């Protein structure tokens, strides 16, 4: 018995040391981004690489933004993310409410159709969407990046599930009190689904801010590029300025890191609840 307990203890300590090491491995690339961003150019080309920079050039951040047109990219990304999130939350709350609390013809059929698109990868539909966007004149505009991906089943699916938990008596009571149908939605339903809204916001912001492929196929003019598209172009360039690209990368992750740190709990719970989005 005594032997096994000591053995157990040793195993536990080893496991702890190992996982602490893994946490450092997970964090290291962030540190490396920072170090590369502020190193003097000469040290970038030093091999072996210097793990601790000789001088800190914090002004690299500002220079990177100016040199690579990143102010424009950031502005575009903010616009795209903001409006995508707004649209996603609005249309999914409304539709989720209708699918959950009303009876209407074709309800089951419509929901089934939407649900069955959950697993369709965007690469399967991107060519037709690209063509449709060209026809209706939203290709190579921010609107073209914002609108098409709003057709997405996950948000609706989550919303309906969540709305099912609202007691019908609550809605009936409001009706008896003379609330209009829209007031029931705006005054009873919306305030009762705060957690749902935060999950939708977190996921949409993360997805849209981080997305590369929709902007990549929709946009051809530099002035509409999003941050990810700009970064990806810099990384693919013949001559890569590692100071610039690491500075810009680091700045680009600040918004999502802030959201992550604020909503950590919702994040993890929402993640576990959904998983679907991959």
């Amino acid at each position: 018995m005594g032997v096994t307990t000591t053995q157990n203890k040793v195993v536990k300590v080893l496991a702890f040391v190992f996982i602490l090491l893994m946490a450092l491995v997970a964090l290291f690339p962030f540190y490396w981004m920072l170090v590369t961003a502020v190193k003097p150019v000469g040290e970038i080309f030093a091999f072996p690489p210097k793990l601790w920079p000789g001088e800190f050039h914090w002004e690299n951040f500002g220079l990177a933004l100016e040199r690579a047109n990143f102010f424009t990219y950031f502005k575009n990304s903010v616009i795209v993310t903001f409006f995508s999130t707004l649209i996603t939350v609005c249309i999914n709350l409304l539709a989720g409410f209708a699918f959950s609390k009303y009876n209407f013809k074709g309800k089951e059929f419509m929901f089934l159709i939407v649900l069955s698109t959950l697993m369709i990868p965007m690469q399967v539909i991107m060519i037709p969407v690209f063509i449709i966007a060209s026809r209706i004149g939203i290709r190579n505009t921010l609107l073209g990046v914002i609108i098409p991906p709003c057709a997405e089943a996950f948000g609706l699916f989550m919303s309906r599930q969540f709305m099912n938990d609202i007691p019908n008596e609550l809605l009936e009571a409001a009706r008896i009190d003379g609330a209009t149908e829209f007031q029931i939605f705006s005054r009873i339903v919306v305030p009762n689904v705060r957690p749902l809204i935060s999950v939708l916001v977190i996921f949409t912001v993360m997805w849209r801010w981080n997305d590369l492929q929709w902007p990549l196929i929709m946009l051809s003019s530099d002035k509409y590029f999003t941050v990810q598209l700009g970064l990806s172009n810099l990384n693919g360039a013949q001559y890569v300025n590692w100071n610039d690209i690491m500075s810009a990368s680091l700045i680009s992750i600040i918004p999502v890191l802030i959201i992550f740190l604020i909503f950590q709990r919702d994040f993890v719970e929402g993640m576990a609840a959904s998983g679907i989005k991959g």
Partner: protein
Amino acid sequence: MEEKKVPFWQNRKIVPYLYVAPNMILFLCFMIIPLFMSFYYSLVKWNGLGDPKFIGLDNYIYIFKDKVFLQSLGNTFLYAFATVPILMMLAIFFAVLLNSKIPFRGFIRSAIYMPAVVSTVVVGTVFTWIFHDQLGLINYILNIFGRESIKWATDTRFAMLMVVLTTFWQRTGYNMVIYLAGLQSISHEVMEAATIDGANSWQKFRYVTMPLLRNTHVFVMVTALIHAFRNFDLIYTMTKGGPLNATKTIVMYVYEQAFNKNYYGRASAAGVVLFVMMMVFTIIRFRAQKEN
């Protein structure tokens, strides 16, 4: 009778249609119709200009004879099978450790999850730098251990390995969180009963935890598989499918055929092949969920 005449926005037969309309219209325009268009495009020869010409199954015949497509198909499976099992093992290992009371638990959990929050483009960029053939850290470490530097991004033998290793870094935390949720749903009574019966930690893990996580295993596996099959951003950022198609996957092939070469028909046919594979995964997942 006056009272029965309500405006349409108060009519409970009409209101739900107004509520679902924006969503359904978007779905119709940017999901349902495009899906059918994709099936149609896969049967035509078209470069985006002029009229599409119907050619039956020729696109499918072409791609299944195309060495690059077959290689992409192989690479997709290679990438999936190289990443998914190891990701699952890492995830479950970390989840079990982080589910017990250890110091700095919150910090470690956040640290391991953090890569999943960052955009794939940034991940790809940082790891392009870390795997840089002349200036990269990885080669520096190899040199310390007396190994030659590896041309990660330009050597066909190593490019896929580079992408796979990067995927481990990026995706372990995400899968770990799903496992943590699964672990937390296992009741304490079951664990206590096993302890009273004299099971040691390993036995508890092997004979209690693992079987009870069966649902979670299937869920994580299918989610990770789907992610692997869809993954475009990482490969596009790191290698663009190169060198010599060594990291080209189906999604890269579809993108390239459509947007670099303007073969919309071939690209759509490859897209339909991808669609069929995803449907198979979906059916497996729903079957597995139904059984429980």
